[in-house]
């Protein structure tokens, strides 16, 4: 008789034990897949929250006091082509969404009523596409040439249909079409006006200059700021880097914690299930001692006996691994919706771990049945078959 048929017949005959072993694989597999998927979702969530918060890394001339960006109009500058140099660098991958900015306090802007206000001007260079990294959706301001976006507080001083008019350093009045009137609650931008960089450089007579680069730090193993600082300063020693986002940190800490939690819970669950399986296989071998003795008496080798036990473990490991993968994904999607608001709809089966699942779990379960299988090969046929 075909040994495979023998394995399936035995599994069906002792279906309760087989079902419990299958359940242990399903638990181990689904918990692993669910935690991995949720951890991945947490990583995506962190990334999206960071995007939602805006750019979180500032790159600016060494020695600049950051508070000066909002209080003085003569912070140190550097050439705007630094952005392009960074974007062209093959080794610069710690930050994304490089946006060159000229940010200057403008203390005497006059509205259409003739009142003077202190506002902040922001000139945005087109976001740089990093040559050696995959393209990403643009972030930050997308201000078109000849237009401005005005902050909520500034907008209150400009009538609808009016243009934004500002006096340049050359004494000329420059007018810009207002493309967007921004909602309030955007911090310093509430009292600011966003320009296309070249427009603002012309108004201020600062052609080719910027005073900071805003960027988004990657989610790096060794920390965003440390890595970004190292990479920037290896290219431009006159620049420094600082991080502005505490919420992103909090979220990333949560992600790291989740990864650590996963790194503990996954092996714990798998090892517990393997131990249970090992005991069940040991019990199974004891129950089958006479069958195994008979196989020996009929001239079957120890390899056949090993095969019968290990193949059973392989089948249950494979079936449980596959079922666990889908159950784990279902768990991740069901609970992920409650936990991750940004990425909830994007929690999908990670097919890369499906391959691991169908290899890892059969191998692990075969390993767990290895000792019982060896015990089976050592069964004394003469003794077990003579028992009354």
């Amino acid at each position, binding site marked *: 008789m075909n040994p495979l048929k023998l394995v399936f017949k035995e599994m069906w005959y002792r279906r309760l034990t087989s079902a419990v072993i299958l359940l242990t694989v399903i638990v181990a597999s689904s918990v692993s897949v669910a935690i991995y998927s949720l951890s991945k979702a947490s990583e995506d969530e962190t990334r999206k929250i960071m995007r939602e918060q805006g750019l979180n890394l500032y790159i600016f001339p060494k020695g600049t006091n950051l508070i000066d960006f909002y209080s003085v109009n003569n912070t140190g500058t550097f050439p705007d082509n630094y952005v392009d140099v960074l974007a062209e660098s093959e080794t610069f991958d710690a930050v994304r969404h490089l946006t060159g900015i000229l940010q200057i306090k403008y203390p005497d802007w006059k509205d259409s009523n003739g009142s003077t206000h202190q506002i902040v001007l922001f000139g945005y260079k087109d976001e740089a596409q990093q040559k050696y990294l995959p393209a990403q959706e643009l972030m930050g301001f997308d201000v078109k040439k000849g237009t401005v976006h005005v902050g909520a507080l500034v907008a209150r001083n400009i009538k609808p249909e009016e243009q934004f008019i500002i006096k340049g350093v050359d004494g000329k009045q420059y007018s810009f079409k207002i493309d967007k009137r921004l909602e309030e609650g955007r911090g310093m931008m509430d009292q600011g006006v966003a320009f296309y960089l070249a427009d603002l450089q012309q108004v201020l007579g600062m052609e080719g200059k910027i005073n900071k680069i805003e960027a988004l730090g990657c989610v790096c193993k060794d920390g965003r700021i440390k890595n970004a600082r190292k990479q920037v300063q290896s290219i431009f020693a006159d620049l420094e880097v600082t991080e502005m986002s505490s919420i992103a940190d909090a979220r990333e800490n949560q992600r790291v914690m989740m990864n650590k939690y996963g790194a503990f819970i996954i092996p714990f669950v798998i090892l517990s299930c393997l131990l249970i399986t090992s005991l069940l296989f040991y019990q199974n071998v004891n129950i089958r001692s*006479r*069958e195994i003795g*008979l196989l020996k008496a*009929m*001239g*079957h*080798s120890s390899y056949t006996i090993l095969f019968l036990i290990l193949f059973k473990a392989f089948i249950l490991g494979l079936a449980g691994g596959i079922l666990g993968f889908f159950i784990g994904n279902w768990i991740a999607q069901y609970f992920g919706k409650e936990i991750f608001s940004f990425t909830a709809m994007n929690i999908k089966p990670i097919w890369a771990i499906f391959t691991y699942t169908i290899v890892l779990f059969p191998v692990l379960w075969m390993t767990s049945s290895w000792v019982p299988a060896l015990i089976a090969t050592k069964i*004394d046929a*003469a003794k077990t078959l003579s028992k009354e």
Partner: protein
Amino acid sequence: MNKSIMMLEINNISKTYRKGSEEFIALSNVSFQIKKGDFVLVNGPSGAGKSTLLNLIGGLIHPDSGEILFNGKNIYNQKSSLINEYRKKHIGFMFQQFHLMPYLTVLENIRFGCYSKKQIDNIGLYIGKCSLTGLENKYPSDLSVGEKQRTAFIRAIISNPDLLLADEPTGNLDPVNSIVLMSLIEAYNSTGGTVVIVSHNPEATRYSNLNLSLERGRLIDLQIEQSKF
């Protein structure tokens, strides 16, 4: 007896079981010979070493000393794979407890003892001879003890082994089923099969031509029924 026609020669076999400091002598310097076609009855009281003798002949346990020659070759002087082959090709086992696979049907249990298509083709013939027709697809749990033992008998002889080793095959059977089984074993013997049977059943002496009596591991009596030769 001419040594050259002997199928099995048991020479000074001894076997002692040890459990801690205790020793139990199962067999001590037992020697005898079996020719092809013999019907050997082994008897003796409980603990005399009957089952140990059967297991030694069947290649299931190693003797402490002595040799067992099958067709002139010491079976224990070979690799374990060859001992497996010896059991597969030359030995058929029957036990008091039947030892049928509980998850296989009658047909599947018998097929389990087949090693060629020809043997599989013969199953129907044996099922008919052993009055198991109609029970082919039943599981052991649905069979009477007599039917179980007849199934075990077919499984033991379906591969046409040289030697049938039966350990108390009628021990669990009623007198009617015992007679049926013994007549089936005799039929196998009459076609040239060699039988070594351990039995307390007095009926068995009717079929045997060689009676061995064991006591405390020693061969105390060996009777050869001349009419069989």
